[in-house]
């Protein structure tokens, strides 16, 4: 067997050599050294896997978690039912829920069948403009009056929730306005509307005033 013949079959050799190949290796130091070198490389390569100690940057998990939460794959069962509605348009209280439902349907959202835990906004956004629109403000005021009538102790809590969720809506709306093609901003906005809708539903579904 010549060196050329040996090198031609070398890629196919896995494990033991044939008698002819062994014979050539015994008689040819160049091919013998080549085989030794290639085996040493393969052996060291296998040790690389066993000594894996490189770690990705700590922020990688944070990015993964955010994405999973946005996609609804993480369901945070301990979070409070912090809910945002679609922006209710009608002035009369009786129209609040169906109006919210109509708006949610318009945006293709699933309403109250969705678990509350899926609607928690994961990215709190600070707003620089605390003032709601007149229509929304009026509806929110009506809601707070209902809550006061039913459960006065809860008014402050609902008022705080409404302030925060309205701020969230405004920020999300601004983001969408800035870049209408921003899918993430659209998702935030949808989530914001949905949460406000659920907040309204919870408030209006509450039992009569507790003693």
């Amino acid at each position: 067997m010549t060196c050329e013949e040996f090198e031609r079959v070398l890629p196919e050799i896995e494990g033991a050599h044939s008698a002819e190949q062994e014979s050539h290796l015994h008689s040819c130091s160049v091919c013998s050294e080549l085989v030794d070198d290639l085996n040493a490389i393969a052996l060291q390569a296998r040790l690389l896997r066993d000594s894996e100690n490189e770690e990705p940057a700590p922020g990688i998990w944070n990015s993964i978690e955010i994405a999973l939460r946005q996609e609804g794959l993480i369901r945070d069962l301990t979070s409070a039912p912090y809910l945002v509605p679609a922006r209710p348009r009608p002035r009369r209280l009786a129209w609040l829920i169906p109006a919210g439902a109509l708006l949610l349907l318009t945006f293709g959202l699933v309403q109250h069948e969705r678990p509350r835990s899926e609607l928690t906004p994961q990215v709190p956004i600070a707003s620089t403009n605390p003032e709601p629109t007149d229509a929304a403000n009026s509806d929110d005021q009506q809601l707070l009056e209902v809550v006061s009538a039913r459960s006065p102790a809860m008014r402050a809590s609902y008022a705080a929730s409404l302030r925060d969720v309205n701020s969230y809506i405004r920020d999300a709306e601004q983001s969408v306005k800035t870049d209408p093609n921003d899918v993430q901003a659209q998702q935030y906005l949808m989530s914001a509307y949905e949460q406000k809708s659920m907040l309204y539903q919870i408030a209006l579904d509450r039992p009569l005033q507790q003693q």
Partner: protein
Amino acid sequence: MTDARKSQAKKLSESELIERAKQGDAEAFEALYHLHKRRVYSLCLRMTANTAAAEDLTQEAFLQLFRKIATFRGESAFSTWLHRMAVNVVLMQLRKKGLPVVPLEDTIDTEEEAPKKELGALDPSLAGSIDRLQLLRAVEDLPPGYRSIFVLHDVEGYEHNEIAEIVGCSVGNSKSQLHKARLKLRELLKTSRAEKARKP
């Protein structure tokens, strides 16, 4: 995740973590990530030789895994499933960039890339003298196509028939390219050693 919860998560078996992750448990997802992140990241790093790319691909591999975790039935080991997904993510990225995943037989090799079979007659053997760092650097210098095959076979332990299926080549091509990758590494390691020896 707090230390107490990390400790609790560790006590759960991997199969329990998987079941919890299927229910949307955030801590289960995180525990699974920490269990497997090094293996996935190392694979991505070796195949791309680029830290930033490896981190992006690690993130993408885990996202794809977690999106599909509901479909995991346990027929194969979870780590195997994850590993295969990471390999596919990396190869897809290489293809997107137009980089050769596997060089075609007898083509593409430029004069610079082709391994030289004839090295200096006085070059000492590499056996017993390759260290981990030298090899890592040499692997980084391999052309992408050679690097993929070498990492998959010699580092990660995939068989040629598996590599052929993953990258879409023949078993013969996989063997041939692995051989060329090893020859190229041999050349790089010997050159590096010779340069070191020349330095005062």
